């Protein structure tokens, strides 16, 4: 009997024919017809029109036919909910069938039909099936609870199914236990805070017992569930580990990896000096190696996981280097992963072997693989100092092959080797220069230019080499342009006499003919430096660069910990937290490793995640704090709050005049002679090296934003930046900021700091709707990828969402209401009087400002700088009455009366507003006013 013929019916009028066949009297014909329907359904044809006819076939004692009809129902019930009701009776009847297979089939299928009315009917049969005498029915019913929860969570809770499910954990049949655990784990994931999976030593014991007896799949469910448990102490941790280790010899790789996950997690709690700890470490290596003899797809998953394990506990596999050697016939995805692990395991002991292998790989055919192999040689050089020399000579051998991409890749890594071991391998520069012409990739060109610039004094024809690049300057990528600019400036500083013309040429190319802001900014900086103080220029441009380390490619520790908790899953394959690829609330909880046992020993990497979760989510600054800060600020005796004089200024004020006119347009008119400039330059040396790490970044252009107070009217409020988004909450991105109003524009100044270990890019910002309709004036301009520990300060214009390549982060921050007072808020005297009277008393409110030691004139001046204008002043009984007006961005006027009594530090404010309604939160307003007054 062959069924393939059902796939070939494509003639017209097919549906009609099928209808006739479905209603045939002959059982065989009916069955044939249903098979045809299913085949059509599979290939994507719409056969929903046959719904009533197919459902009619359901009442049959032929189980094969019944299953086919059920399959059809599961597919189309949703589109025909009313008709699907017709099936309910059969389902309910089948749930009472004496045959357990049929009872289970009915309850299994019913759970897959996502129609509300059917769901209602499901509850009673499900309740019975959960307590069925046959374990086969119970295990099916357990999964059905999870299905039902997915359709209608409330219903499941109301019906008390969760408790029944919990009871099944104590079932006598291991498979029922396993399915109940799977269902509960899934339900618990969508209720992160519920104590649904109440894991306590008793349930853990039950699970461990079931672990020995259930199917391979059940073992996986149980192990994955165990991994979420946190043992109370190291002793419990050890006893669980002891009972889990036998699983490492299971034939199913998923059982093995899930067991590894449990062990990796619980090991954190074991004291390092414990004998058992060492035993456990030794037991982990062989099963991990065995995974590499599985099918290639499993090898891939295993390798991605081993990559994590090696980063967390390098000691486990340190002697197993050989098993990661690439085989000629490995699929490319396995090869690339093996390479990664080889580098991680490379050490002085095995470096010779590793290098020999890598050299071998560099002659293979797959371009990606060859490139990675070459890059790996460079990484070995940086990681194992003793091998650097051998690595360099290997790379030189490879360059001799003249294979284009090999040469380019080799030059890129040699640049890194120079950064790690300066002044050691310059002898190879000559060889590198020979290959100058064959470089056509930006990264390789930039690397070569960097090398020429860095070692300009030892390359006789450095000027010629760089000049040759200059010809096609505008066709180069930004990365190369920036590097060329820097290299020529370096060259000039080293050999000033011969290269004056060259440097002029590149500076004018960069500043006048380029429309790339990064390039222009860097050009101007150099130009100004060179024209003002060549000594400082030398200090800045030729400053000693920090050494690079091999740790740059490691996964950030908090992320690594989270990924360790997800061993075996997709998260560990992608090396991303589940929240990065799972929609909705499921799996978004961040898991972390348990802290170590209190036996006094320290874990190599302290657990920053632990501290983070204990701190309350203090994203919104409390108002009291804000006020306190502001008060402190004003208690300083000076009336100016401009930026403090620069301490690192290497520059004279007059120097500004030397700058070309173009600079003015760049910096804006208000910079003139402000000492903040000095601060900007003072910071230059620190940022310069960073821009070498990430070529193409315009680290320097950001410097201009440093002068937060530049051009601010004296006396205006200049609050410090507050942390809005702590790094813990945003995968390493810290945002702090402040709101200021400058020249009639509300600005939100943010400092974004990358505290993670990987580069962040693709920033964007968005505000949630808010009362005053604040919205970003322009997109967040962060052109630079944000490298680790680098911090940038762009200025720009509340719930805020900031997005980058890693994730979207949400935070909220309060802007002082004074930001909203506009400059034309001065009311005419007469209008003021009339308006004051017109406003009903209901709109009035009073409050006091305490401990303010300004006299009324000073207060008035101060308020004016924040756009609170004094319209009139009256002195009554020794009290100064100030009448003031201000206008909000949305056009609402606010009038206020400020009573100041000489000698009394407390002011009284009565304020009234036009059309105030609910728009202004009185509290917020009060604060705004108070802040400004003080």
């Amino acid at each position, binding site marked *: 009997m*062959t*069924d*393939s013929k059902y*796939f070939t019916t494509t003639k017209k009028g097919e549906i009609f024919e099928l209808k006739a066949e479905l209603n045939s009297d002959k059982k065989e014909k009916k069955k044939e017809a249903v098979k045809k329907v*299913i*085949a059509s359904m*599979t*290939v*994507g044809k719409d056969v929903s029109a046959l719904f009533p006819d197919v459902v009619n076939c359901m009442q049959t004692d*032929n*189980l094969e036919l019944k*299953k086919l009809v059920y399959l059809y129902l599961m597919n189309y019930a949703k589109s025909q909910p009313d008709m699907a009701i017709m099936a309910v009776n059969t389902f309910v009847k089948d749930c009472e069938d004496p045959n*357990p*297979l049929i009872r289970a089939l009915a309850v*299994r299928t019913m759970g897959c039909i996502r129609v509300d009315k059917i769901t209602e009917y499901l509850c009673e049969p499900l309740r019975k099936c959960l307590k069925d005498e046959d*374990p*086969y*029915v119970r*295990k099916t019913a357990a999964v059905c609870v*999870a299905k039902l929860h997915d359709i209608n969570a409330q219903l499941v809770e109301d019906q008390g199914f969760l408790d029944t499910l919990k009871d099944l954990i104590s079932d006598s049949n*291991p498979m*029922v236990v396993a399915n109940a655990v799977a269902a509960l784990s899934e339900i618990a994931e969508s209720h992160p805070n519920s104590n649904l999976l109440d894991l306590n030593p008793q349930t853990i014991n039950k699970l461990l017992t079931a672990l*020995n*007896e259930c*199917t391979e*799949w059940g073992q996986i469910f149980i192990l994955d569930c165990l991994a979420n448990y946190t043992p109370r102490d190291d002793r419990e941790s050890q006893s669980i580990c002891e009972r889990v280790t*036998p699983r490492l*010899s*299971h*034939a*199913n790789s*998923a059982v093995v*990896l*899930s067991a590894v996950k449990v062990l990796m997690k619980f090991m954190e709690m074991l004291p390092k000096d414990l004998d058992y700890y060492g035993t456990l470490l030794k037991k982990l290596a*062989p099963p991990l190696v*065995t995974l590499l*003899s599985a099918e290639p*797809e*499993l090898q*891939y*998953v295993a390798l991605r996981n081993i990559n994590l394990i090696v980063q967390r506990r390098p000691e486990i596999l340190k002697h197993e280097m050989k098993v990661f050697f690439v*085989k*000629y*016939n490995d699929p490319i*995805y396995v090869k690339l992963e093996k390479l990664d692990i080889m580098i991680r395991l490379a050490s002085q002991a095995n470096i010779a*072997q590793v290098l020999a292998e890598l050299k071998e790989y560099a*002659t293979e*055919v797959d371009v990606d693989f060859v490139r990675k192999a070459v890059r790996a040689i460079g990484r070995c050089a940086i990681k194992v100092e003793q091998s650097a020399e051998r690595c360099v000579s290997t790379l030189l051998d490879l360059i001799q*092959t003249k*294979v284009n991409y090999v040469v380019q890749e080799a030059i890129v890594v040699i640049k890194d080797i120079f950064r790690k071991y300066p002044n050691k391998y310059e002898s190879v520069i000559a060889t590198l220069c020979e290959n100058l012409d064959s470089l056509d990739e930006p990264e390789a060109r930039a690397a070569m230019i960097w090398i020429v610039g860095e070692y300009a004094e030892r390359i006789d024809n450095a000027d010629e080499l760089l000049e040759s690049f200059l010809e096609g300057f505008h066709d180069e990528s930004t990365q190369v342009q920036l590097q060329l600019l820097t290299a020529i400036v370096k060259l000039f500083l080293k050999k000033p006499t011969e290269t004056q013309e060259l440097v002029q040429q590149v500076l004018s190319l960069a500043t006048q003919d380029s429309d790339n802001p990064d390039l222009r900014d860097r050009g101007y900086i150099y130009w100004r430096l060179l024209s003002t103080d060549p000594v400082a220029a030398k200090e800045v441009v030729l400053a000693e660069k920090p050494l690079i380390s091999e740790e740059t490619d490691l996964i950030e520790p908090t992320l690594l910990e989270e990924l360790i908790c*997800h061993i*075996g*899953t*997709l998260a560990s*394959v992608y090396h991303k937290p*589940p929240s990065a*690829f*799972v929609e909705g609330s*499921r*799996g978004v909880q961040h898991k972390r490793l348990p802290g170590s046992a209190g036996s006094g020993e320290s874990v190599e990497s302290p657990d920053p995640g632990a501290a983070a979760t204990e701190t309350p989510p203090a994203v919104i600054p409390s108002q009291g704090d804000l006020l306190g800060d502001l008060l402190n600020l004003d208690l300083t005796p000076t009336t100016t709050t401009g930026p403090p004089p620069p301490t690192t200024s290497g520059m004279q004020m007059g120097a500004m005049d030397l700058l070309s006119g173009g600079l003015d347009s760049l910096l804006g008119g208000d910079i003139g002679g402000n000492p903040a400039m000095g601060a900007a330059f003072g910071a230059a040396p620190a940022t310069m090296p960073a821009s070498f790490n990430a070529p193409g970044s315009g680290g320097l252009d950001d410097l201009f934003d440093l002068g937060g107070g530049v051009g601010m009217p004296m006396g205006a409020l200049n609050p410090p930046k507050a942390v809005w988004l702590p790094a813990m909450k945003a995968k390493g991105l810290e945002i702090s900021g402040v709101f200021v109003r400058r020249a009639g524009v509300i600005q939100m100044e943010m400092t974004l700091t990358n505290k993670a270990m990987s580069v962040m890019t693709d920033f964007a910002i968005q505000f949630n709707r808010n009362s005053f309709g604040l919205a970003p004036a322009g997109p967040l301009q962060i052109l630079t990828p944000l490298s680790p520990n680098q911090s940038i300060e762009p200025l720009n214009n509340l719930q805020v969402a900031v997005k980058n390549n890693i994730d979207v982060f949400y935070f909220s921050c309060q802007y002082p209401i004074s930001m909203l007072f506009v400059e034309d808020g001065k009311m005419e005297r007469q209008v003021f009087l009339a308006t004051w009277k017109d406003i009903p008393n209901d709109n009035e409110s009073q409050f006091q400002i305490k401990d303010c030691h300004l006299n009324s004139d000073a207060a008035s001046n101060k308020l004016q700088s924040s756009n609170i204008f004094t319209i009139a002043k009256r002195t009554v009984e020794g009290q100064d009455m100030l009448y003031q007006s201000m206008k909000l961005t949305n056009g609402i006027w606010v009038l206020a009366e400020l009573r100041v009594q000489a000698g009394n530090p407390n002011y009284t404010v009565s304020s009234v507003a036009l059309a105030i309604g609910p728009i202004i939160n009185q509290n917020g307003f009060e604060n705004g006013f108070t802040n400004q007054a003080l």
Partner: protein
Amino acid sequence: MIGGLFIYNHKGEVLISRVYRDDIGRNAVDAFRVNVIHARQQVRSPVTNIARTSFLHVKRSNIWLAAATKQNVNATMVFEFLYKMCDVMAAYFGKISEENVKNNFVLIYELLDEILDFGYPQNSETGALKTFITQQGIKSQHHTKEEQSQITSQVTGQIGWRREGIKYRRNELFLDVLESVNLLMSPQGQVLSAHVSGRVVMKSYLSGMPECKFGMNDKIVIDKQGKGGGSEDVAKSGKQSIAIDDCTFHQCVRLSKFDTERSISFIPPDGDYELMRYRTTKDIILPFRVIPLVREVGRTRLEVKVVIKSNFKSSLLAQKIEVRIPTPLTTSGVQLICMKGKAKYKASENAIVWKVKRMAGMKESQISAEIELLPTNDKKKWARPPISMNFEVPFAPSGLKVRYLKVFEPKLNYSDHDVIKWVRYIGRSGIYETRC
């Protein structure tokens, strides 16, 4: 968990499509076809994320099996499940081909309904499945009540792989030790890596619920026994014991017992199954040594000489020997001389294939080839892929020996002596390569 499971033919047409979760829509079927099956470049990863849906796939001959999910599933489990699915299908209808899948689509749907519930894998032991999912459809009416409960208790039970009441007139056991020996050798004859991955495969025809115990010359066990027994015993057996790096077992083996006592005890499934897999890296007997000699004569000629030496008892015979010597892409002609067997240059495979039917131990043989090359300007050097070798030998290269396999059946009246046992050792080449 698994949200949907799809089977495609090589053209990307859907043969089977079963959706388990609401978040996987019909468009997922097309997304995988467009982005993976029809993708231009070679598959770069078995896990693909397309529009926030993850696809995990395996390929069997021309057939693609893909599991789709939107959650953070246990990826290892999904792949294990896909392989298991292939095994189950193969057990039902043989080779997995488009023809067979189409011919059995109703059966496949029935299986998918049984072994995957809401995306959670359920019992997938073929032995158990075959009791109630038959190719002719289930004749549920014919099962008596006892039979029904027997089925369900087997599917959910502790010993899901064996049913009760099996009877044989002759109790028989076949035990095969199958090893594949892997080698990577440098041109100078230095062993870069070598390991044996072995399997113990069993065919059991035993009545009742027999309790079995399997013993081999595992170093740890023998050393332990040595301590208990006389010192003479250690000297005798110590030489022959082998160090097993790691082993994994069929789910019938009691793992906790192995962990504590290192004894392998189990109730076997009926018929064919794989009892254990193991891996060794120490003291491997490399059955053959390949000695390559490649000389470039000018730019258009290569001289290749390859010597193979057999390294085992001269009374044993190796079979199906094949040496594969890769040639450059620019090869225009090849002249071959070999002492034994037949050699041929296969242009389509860019290799010289030298076949020898049989070869005894402690012998040596050689082939020499002159390769003419087309002159090219290509600067790129020839990558020189390794010389690979295939063979089959009648011993276990790891040195593993079966010491005993005891059978106890307390309820039925047959003893260990009544069981007829057959043991056989086969060593095959895995990836057996010598760089040149």
